[in-house]
């Protein structure tokens, strides 16, 4: 293949349910694939994004025009598989340059059966999505725009589907990393045990907990409170994940049973579920928050943090129980970004303090979680 490969690639279309059509060339796998078309403004981290379970059921557009520059490798994967349904880019390179790269982005998508489309005016697409809101769409190489549109119109909307069941683990497992042993506790006590309720967890969450000396167990989304507590956790983390929390009655119930019985940290979808426990409903944002530059203001310190975000739904703070306090707000649109229980060790964040991709500015929240975990453990040990 010559260096100028674009004309050698098959034509492809991105067809939106509202009838707008973008022409480009096919990258990744052949065929067609459908999903909610969303965009992320993160300038790096395409592989982390592709493998982020929160993107399940979605076709991801990257606003930065050059993708694939540093290739792909397993260490950048946030889950075992590519989660997006399709990938839309301005330009995808077959000439990556990075010492860790083992495969081009194109080959990576192709091998895992994920269709993509390149040579799209992604800025025009983003402008369209920002003004009309996110919309269902399809990347296709094997049908006309009319055929694709007809198919799309018969399809259920993303918001009505529960993707958590697809991305959560089937069985509980201990998260371990090769070559990285758990650091021993300074007082010789067993490591804190954190149970992660897997709604679509990213590996980096578990990595960061391990780095803090925790034994980490991920459990399926269907696990009830008593089963979780039977694992004798020192803390529970409700993970991020795809879709609308209003579809997750069972997770909400399980969470309700955990409050007051163990320290809890909720991230993203986990935050929204905890919001539900305390009376808040959720609503769908017009085009969501997806990117690595979202400013969040801590209402107590006044400090602003740059956060990594990936969500289409948000917590409606209006009907929150007085027992929880809104501690953080999005600086741009005022969405609820953090909750804190006034008496129990429960706090949540809408954004991804685990980064990957994105800034590490709020990684300290894992330390805050660990502090409440250790404090409680020590006081309970002292009480014994």
């Amino acid at each position, binding site marked *: 293949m010559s260096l100028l490969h674009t004309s050698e690639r098959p034509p492809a279309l991105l067809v939106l349910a509202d009838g707008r059509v973008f022409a480009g060339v096919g990258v990744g796998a052949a065929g067609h694939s459908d999903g909610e078309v969303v965009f992320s403004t993160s300038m790096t981290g395409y592989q982390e994004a592709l493998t982020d379970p929160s993107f399940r059921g979605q076709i991801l557009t990257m606003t930065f025009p050059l993708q694939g520059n540093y290739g792909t490798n397993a260490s950048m994967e946030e889950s075992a598989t590519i989660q997006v349904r399709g990938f839309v880019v301005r330009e995808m390179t077959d000439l990556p340059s990075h010492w860790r790269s083992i495969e081009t982005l194109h080959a990576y998508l192709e091998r895992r059966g994920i269709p993509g489309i390149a040579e799209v005016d992604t800025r*025009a697409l983003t402008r369209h999505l920002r003004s009309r809101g996110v919309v269902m769409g399809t990347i296709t190489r094997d049908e006309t725009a009319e055929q694709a549109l007809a198919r799309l119109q018969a399809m259920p909307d993303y918001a009505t589907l529960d993707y958590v069941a697809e991305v959560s683990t089937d069985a509980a497992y201990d998260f371990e990393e090769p070559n990285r042993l758990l650091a021993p506790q300074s007082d010789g006590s067993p490591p804190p045990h954190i149970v992660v309720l897997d709604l679509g967890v990213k590996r980096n969450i578990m990595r960061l907990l391990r780095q803090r000396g925790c034994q980490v167990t991920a459990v399926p989304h269907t696990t009830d409170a008593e089963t979780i507590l039977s694992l004798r956790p020192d803390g529970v983390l409700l993970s991020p994940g795809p879709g609308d929390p209003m579809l997750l009655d069972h997770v909400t119930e399980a969470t309700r049973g955990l409050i007051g019985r163990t320290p809890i940290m909720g991230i993203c979808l986990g935050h929204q579920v905890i919001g539900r426990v305390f009376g808040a409903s959720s609503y769908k944002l017009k085009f969501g928050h997806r990117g690595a530059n979202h400013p969040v203001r801590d209402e107590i310190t006044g400090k602003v943090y740059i956060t990594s975000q990936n969500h289409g739904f948000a917590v409606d703070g209006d009907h929150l129980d007085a027992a929880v306090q809104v501690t953080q707000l999005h600086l741009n649109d005022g969405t609820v970004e953090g909750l804190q229980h006034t008496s129990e060790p429960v706090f949540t964040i809408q954004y991804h303090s685990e980064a990957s991709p994105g800034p590490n500015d709020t990684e300290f929240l894992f330390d805050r979680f660990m502090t409440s975990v250790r404090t409680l453990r020590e006081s309970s040990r002292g009480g014994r």
Partner: protein
Amino acid sequence: MRPPKPASVLIIGSGPIIIGQAAEFDYAGTQACKAMREEGIRSILVNSNPATIMTDEEVADVTYIEPLTVEVLERIIARERPDALLPTLGGQTGLNLAVELHEAGILGKYNVRLLGSSIRTIKLAEDRELFRQLLTDIGEPTPVSVIVESWEAAQAALDIVGLPAVVRPAYTLGGTGGGIAHSLEEYERIMKNGLDASPISQVLVEQSLLGWKELEYEVMRDGNDTCITICNMENLDPMGVHTGDSIVVAPSQTLSDREYHMLRNSALKIIRALGIEGGCNVQFALAPRPDVVGWAESDTADCLPYHVIEVNPRVSRSSALASKATGYPIARVAAKIAVGKRLHEVENAVTRRTTAAFEPALDYVVVKIPRWPFDKFAGGDRTLGTQMKATGEVMAIDRTFEGALQKAIRSLEFGSRTILWERSDWPAVPPLDATDERIWAVLASIRRHVPLEEISGRSGIDPWFVERLARIVEMERTLLAQDLTPLLLREAKRLGFADRDIATLADRLPDQVRALREEWDIRPVYKMVDTCAAEFDAVTPYFYSTYEDENEAPPTSRESVLVLGSGPIRIGQGIEFDYCSVRAARALQHAGIESIMANSNPETVSTDYDTSDRLYFEPLDEESVRDLLENEAGDSGEAPRTIVQFGGQTAINMAKPLNNAALPIAGSSADSIDLAEDRGRFGQILAELDIPQPPGAAVHTLEEALSTADAIGYPVLVRPSYVLGGRAMEVVQDANELVRFFGAALAENTGAVLIDKYLVGPEVEVDAICDGVTVLIPGIMEHIERAGVHSGDSMAVYPPQRLTPEQRDAIVDYTTRMALALQVRGLMNVQFVIAPAAAPNGPGVFVIEVNPRSSRTVPFLSKVTGVPMVDLAVNIMLGRSLLEQGYSAGLWPERNLVAVKAPVFSMSKLVDVDTFLGPEMKSTGEVMGVDYTFGAAVRKALIASGLHVTAGTPFLLSLSNQSKAEAVAMIRDLHEAGCRLYATEGTAALIEGLGIPVEMVTKRLNEGHPNVVDVIRAGTVKAVINTVEGGRAAVQRDGFHIRRNATEMRIPCFTSIDTARAAIQALAHPDAYEVRPLLEYRDGVRP
């Protein structure tokens, strides 16, 4: 606790434009003043540079154009009593002065609070040892280095640093005497050389990071400890080349997310540790591959080691670039933070619905390329290293890297040096070491099938970039081999190929390619720089071209006019033209016309998004300007008028192509412009008007040149027509020299070569404004140096001190009649030589040159006379006469002040460049001294330009025979002022003959000591007067070492007897000088 908001703030500008400190600080200072006004804070600005926008009356509340010294600043502080000092927007000059003011106890004495950066922070970032300690304390890696002063210490140092090691002698220029040692033998050789080369025998040994990636982060922090990154940038050139001399790409292209954030984390940690409230730039080296650091790849390590290289605790050239690359106004926000605002309390002026507390998301690629002065200094050392050599830079934006790179190359305005250029004497495998030509050498290597890995390996340029360049070459081959089709042409345009280059490759004419594009509907669309990758609707119309589907810049419905900017800062075309462009945009707005700005220079005020109503960041060539005018014409087909008068030669050169394309020009017509620039046509007009000019002719062959010179008599001035800044201009003494220089002039390829009689006498310059009926002359400027020194390198005095009334009248009369005859609509600049001896029957005023455009003296003259020259010219273009604007014909009444404009050079940065003043311009910037008397004004100009010498200073004199007689009075003055004199053979004899003690030092470097170089390098003499005569060859033979060594020791070196005389008069009779706001000198009552 938030400190109280100051009521008044003193802002220090960065002074004259020099290499390493250019227009970016005008941009920063102007933004800071704007920010102060928005915050309701009184701003007091001081800068010595009159060519800046920041020193314009509307910008700060009080403006001082005074030398940037502690004494002057103390007088300003005593008078204005500011609450606070903001030193972080005036480059290194600003920071250094803040430290000096602090150390002199002045800040304490007047209770002035320092904003933005503390003294501790400034010192931490500047002092190598303190900085290393800080980094060690916070756990950030920095390259190992040791300072040694002997070979023994150097041997010990090697155990700590290891090989390869970088050897950097202290206080040598451009790294002279240093190098990289790979073996013990090399180390010994280089180290011993280095110890010798350093005047203080001090050498820094440093761990070699050559070949590592170089990255920069622009970060900000507010008083509440909120920290953000504005932009990261990746240097295409690896470590080893100064970042100001590197091709820079934003955002980084080859970093993974983890690497990007690893360095971002480090940058934020550093700004926190330094406690900066404002902006800061952090430079990193990142290992590109495990083998480079001899580091075993393991499964668990995802990131390679990095080192922190440098921190600038202030806004910088990089932050100006980052501002333009992202749309985020770093200087404005930094100024607001400095006075106590929090990031989230500052509005994002681009979106107007978000705040400054966020990180810009780019959805395009930005490429910056430096603009080096080697087109002017052909003899200069083109090697790039740790000493910056570029005078300016260009930036281009596109949705592809290749497109941005190619547009940036076009923006350099190197004429024939397109993407296809190759040096004719390159060997089969072109040299890939770091020079200004490397990007072309890489392309040439790819064309010659040098393996890409080899190119990357030898140059250290990341394979990603090399492969992108290979795509460009692949497209060249395709264009050479295949017929143009709509698909191929579109693909070539996506990769940034100019019509001109496509034409060359596809064997067409550029206009044919353009016609094909029109036929096939292949036109650029314009996308917006909006800080947020289209996530939010933005209101700021800041556009770049790309070949894609959706156009975001529909033509405006209001009447609009395009102002062409002046492109990159270069010698001969400096910040003055940016001043004019900015004023023009504002004048249009005041007149209710929408202003559209086009420019390619990221440093400037003109490319600030709120200077004009619409900004196109584009190359200033025919293709781009026509494309954007067609975009503005829209379906109506009526393009806005274009102003070509304010953007220097860059803009005026567009007159002809625009006219040929039937695009309308505002102001003087293309024909008027040609009339002034075409030697033959202009000569005819002068003859008809009976206005004298030195005899001469435009010639095309050597034979014509020789016969012309014979007819008019030597010495003659030889120069190509249509060039800037006197490039390739020579005073030629005889036929032999003429033969030698004629070729050089012809090689400029601009048509005819002009041969004129060289008349000796003072040079005088005027700027005039004409509406077709009335001609206003705001002022006359007299040069201190005689004709022969380029006007841009001369000291100029307003009002003139030596003209007779008859001469002045002749100047006004000639200027008026020429402006009317040329049908000038707008500005015109005329240069005269006053040579009464050559005209026994007349006033002795000869026209040397007319430029039908704004000149570099427009900001100076506008400021000292108070005549808003650019505004008047713009209004004339809009149809308002001078009379309607309240101005009448003739010379504007002289103001009750004396202003001296003095040039400033950057010679210490350019190894191997001779510093003597001649017809070819060499200065990079200017300063102004203004006062009530000539003596005080000259003294201030000398202080501000670094040429001031005081009584008792030891001088070295080496004078040409012609200047000896003139020098006698000067020598007596020096002696009386207690200056010890040293002189070369002939000059010493002259001085002895006057009965004045003198020490003879030989200029023959191999005949005993002390010689001239010894006394300069040892610091025995602190100033040099070295006059020379004859053509360039003679000049270079004579005294090159004297001048070069004086430059390297940074002591004043006078090569014109006229400048020396002015300096010695100031030394012998030091007038007390005033320190006042400019407006007080100009419009106030003289005390």
